[in-house]
């Protein structure tokens, strides 16, 4: 592969950038993803997945079947926020920052 070849089209990450992370010790897709954003774009690694595995294999000798797939993240294909929203305004695990401000005897602690 040519050094300047774009491997991740969404984030425009080249072969060379991926190679550098591997030479610094990265062994799996997720390591490369976090360092370069390769695979974090709208296609969520559907295009670059096997290319990256091939590069890891070539550079490290790790057999392709031992290279873990990138972590797939909900919702797999993009959906609108309103599809997820239920419009409830009561929250349990989601907080507002002011909820965290602690008062003691009517004063800020």
């Amino acid at each position: 592969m040519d050094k300047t070849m774009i491997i991740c089209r969404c984030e425009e990450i080249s072969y060379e950038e991926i190679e550098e992370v591997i030479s610094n010790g990265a062994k799996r897709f997720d390591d490369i993803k976090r360092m370069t954003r390769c695979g974090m774009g709208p296609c969520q690694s559907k295009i670059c997945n096997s290319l990256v595995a091939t590069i890891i294999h070539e550079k490290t000798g790790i057999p392709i079947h031992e290279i873990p797939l990138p972590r797939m993240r909900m919702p797999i294909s993009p959906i609108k926020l309103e599809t997820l929203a239920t419009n409830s305004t009561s929250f349990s695990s989601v907080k507002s920052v002011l909820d965290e401000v602690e008062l003691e005897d009517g004063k800020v602690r």
Partner: protein
Amino acid sequence: METSYETIIIGGGVVGSSIAYHLSERKKEGILVLDQKFPLSGTSGSTQAWVWVHNKTPSWYAEFNMYSAELYPYLSKKIGDVEYKRTGGLSPFFNEADREKALLLAEAYKKIGIKIKVLSREEALEKEPSLNPEVAGATYSSIDGNVNPFRLVDMYMRAAKKNGVQYSTYNKVTEIQKLPGKFIVSSRKGTFVCNNLILAGGTWSRELGKLVDISIPVNQLRGQILVTEPLKPFLHYTISGLRQAFNGEVLIGYSMEEEGFNRATTLDVIQETANMAVHYVPQLKKAKVVRAFSGIRAMPEDGFPILGNIPGIENLYVAATHSGVTLSPLIGTLMTELILDGETSIPIDRYSISRFDLAIR
């Protein structure tokens, strides 16, 4: 690789890497960072990364965060562009009871020199026109902002390596032995000797503590975040709950769950998070979510950083904290002072591990 080092840092997240970098600014040789996986595979790779001061209580803790936020512009000059942006921070509220609380907060902060404003509905909407018109008001502070956590850790690492720091990744520490004047650190890839040992294992601090027979009371607190497709820049401020990154993505989420090390994302919290987004900024309804991720906060038992040396074990240090992104420049600076000078420019006694029971139960 050498086997003998002046200082070994266990953990290459934002905290460990900041310490490595700051230490290497003054002492170029003999620093090794060990990570069981890869830097950013821990909490530092799954965070909102606000550089956040306002709304933190008690006010002495806010002050500590402020000193760190103040170091950011200087840090970017030293290690390179980390996409830090001092946007100012807005915490919207939707009921009048919260205004009372906000005013008390502003009052308490005034005493220590942190300026926050309590905005009326109109003022809040004027600043951030995309906010829900039903907002009651907001607290505002100009010191808050955000940073790209991936670039931050990457740049800490690059700068550290340039100064001679070595990183050994995929190298889990399995045993630590204390001998007079030195530590013997056994890891998957070999055994290392060092004079100073720093535990910066984030959410794994408890396990690291066990290796030296002390209790480091750090718990796990899961947070889930939604990420939208890149949108054209429209949010001006870091809003507590959501922020727009440099590339246009909006990161949404402020959830807390006790789920141990479980890094799953769950539909109920995803839905609540979506609700928060459209409640705060209604026009986000049509924005597409490209992924949900979760991270595990390293949460000390009382919520405050655990920093400094470990009493009774010479040359052993710990740095474990929530808000590690905000605090990393300050923690790196102070830990360096502590190790090299034996004292810090800002007192950190309050954050000493000695406030807890050190014995392993």
